[in-house]
């Protein structure tokens, strides 16, 4: 999870990933920011994220993103 956190901070500097479980709902992350994050995740973890996964629930927190990656890696 720390590796993911570092990746997120690198791609979205200034966002407080550690202390929010409502990154999208509280508009800390915009929908267009999600594209930046998804590209970084796909590149780093060698997973493919489908359009069905591009939903707010999967990006509302670091743990949600971690769960998504874990699920995609099988």
């Amino acid at each position, binding site marked *: 999870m720390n590796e993911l956190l570092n990746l997120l901070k690198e791609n979205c500097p200034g966002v407080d990933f550690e202390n929010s479980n409502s990154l999208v709902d509280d508009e800390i992350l*915009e929908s*267009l920011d999600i594209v930046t994050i998804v590209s970084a995740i796909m590149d780093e973890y060698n997973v493919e994220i489908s*359009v069905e996964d591009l939903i707010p629930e999967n990006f509302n927190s670091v743990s949600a993103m971690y769960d998504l990656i874990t699920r995609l890696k099988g």
Partner: protein
Amino acid sequence: MLNRIDDIKKVNELVTSSLKIGVITNCTLTPNQWHEEIENKTLFYYQFDGGVFFFRLRDYGYKLNYYIYNFDNIPKIQLDKPSYVEIVLRPKDNTQIVNSFENLGFKQLFTRIRMKNTIYEQKNLPKPEYIEPKKAYDFLNSVFDKKTACLPTIDELEQAEKQGLLLWRKNNENEITALLHVKQDRKKYEIRHLAVSENERKKGLALSLANEFISRFGHCQTLVWVREDYYAPKHIYEKTGFKPDGFKAIVMSN
């Protein structure tokens, strides 16, 4: 030249192959919206070495969405119909994408700015008066230009009506004279349309609807996009506590 998409797998393949570091997009379609376009046979694409364009067919032309990761390779495509693209710029974004579309022959039509509300205390009000979604749909289509206005479907208006998110005013003949349509997106609201029929303007109807909205939902975060050159609605939103947040959307067509 354009290929139709008949399966969500193709969408996934195209989007996934474009999600490279540095990619920019204007695409915020939900999974349901993708499926709907495919079902209606209105989704087309053009892939190039640098990204992909999605074209959503409408009776007036195409709505264009893009994923672009290499600006040097954007091709000039010959299209059989006019295309409309909305480029959303966050405060930190540069305008290179706008220049790229201008190089493709697109011209700027207008710019929208995004405004956010001040948070107020909730007031308890009775449910709004019922409005038939089809009538709301016809009214909005009569007031707005469907090419650039992102008009709702009747289903979306039905949903809004059930949630108490359609506020309206009527005349003595029970005809709609003004309408406010709001969409709820999880914890946030977005004012999607505020419309007043032409011969009922300058009577305070729009401000009255905006104030009613604030009374009902002003305790929640609300967004609204408004044309930069539409001073009357901008003024109404400012009067009810909305302020620009730096986001812009530039609407272009070829």
